């Protein structure tokens, strides 16, 4: 009975893993070596894989801040985020992911990324920055 139980658990684990893997492939997130699979502070990057991979093209040696933003429900109301950060000369590139509720901001590798400053800039557009992940490219 014990062996049967162990066998059942193993089959279930393999099945679950396969399902996860299949889902991962379907979402286009399982490209070996791509940065969206990287763990940051123990958490997998919560980004749109394709969008993120496109964004980091040409950013080798830079760093990217992935900012989670709440209240970013429409394109028109997110425009101010792009405007605000475009005034910051240390920002190399920016992308808004409406579906994921993320703002991707590229900086030079030496830039000290200040989450409080980012929060302030996001708030000036009327939204709230709730989380920050930084990844070196």
């Amino acid at each position, binding site marked *: 009975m014990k062996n049967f139980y162990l066998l059942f658990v193993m089959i279930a684990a393999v099945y679950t893993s396969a399902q996860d893997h299949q889902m991962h492939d379907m979402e286009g997130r399982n490209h070996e070596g791509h940065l969206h699979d990287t763990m940051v502070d123990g958490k997998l990057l919560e980004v749109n894989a394709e969008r993120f991979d496109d964004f980091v093209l040409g950013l080798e040696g830079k760093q990217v801040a992935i900012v989670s933003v*709440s209240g970013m*429900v429409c394109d*028109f*109301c997110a425009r101010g985020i792009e405007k605000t950060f475009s005034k910051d000369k240390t920002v190399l590139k920016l992308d*808004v992911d*409406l579906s994921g509720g993320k703002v991707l901001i590229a900086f030079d590798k030496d830039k000290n990324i200040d989450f409080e400053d980012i929060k302030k800039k996001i708030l*000036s557009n009327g939204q709230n920055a709730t989380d920050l992940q930084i990844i070196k490219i």
Partner: protein
Amino acid sequence: MGIKYFYTFLLLIGPMFLESRPISYSGGSTLMLKSNAMQNSAYYHYSPSYKFSIGIEQVKDKYFDADYSSLRLTYLLNRKNTQHSQRNLYLQSGISSDGVDHYFYGVHGDWETRRLFSGFGYKETQTASLDYAEKYLQLGVAPYIGEYGDLHTWLMVKAKHDELTNEWNTYPVLKLFKGNALMEIGYTDASEWDIHFMYRF
């Protein structure tokens, strides 16, 4: 209560019907152009912060063949952001160049996700000869979810009630926006085509 008062009412509260996003981001400016059967107007406002905007509206009154300006102020009383939604409550007011006895004040609010929109408004207008109130409800759905930079589309229905006729009038509104430009097109039997263009910079 004559048809003239009815048209006066529509003329004065008309801008409210198709108005959206009354406050921009901090330091942002917005230009709105509107045209319908009874008036053309140009409204510019500046937002010192995301919480309020101040602006001036120039109105060409087709029905009375008159021109006037209004100084307008909008204040964001409350906003609730979540990961998938935003809720807003605004206070608005304005005073006309016709005199201090011609002004309006009101409240309007909305709640939206990327798929759904709902909004309401209440506005009280006072003139030297007439005081009246107006209220509306609006519901909308996005037929598809666009990404940042795409053309976005909203299909909406608006129902408004005015004290002068004591009737609800319901009509469709199509909203399109891309980048910094937004256009709303509405149609009512009372005011025919109502077109509103907005650009932020």
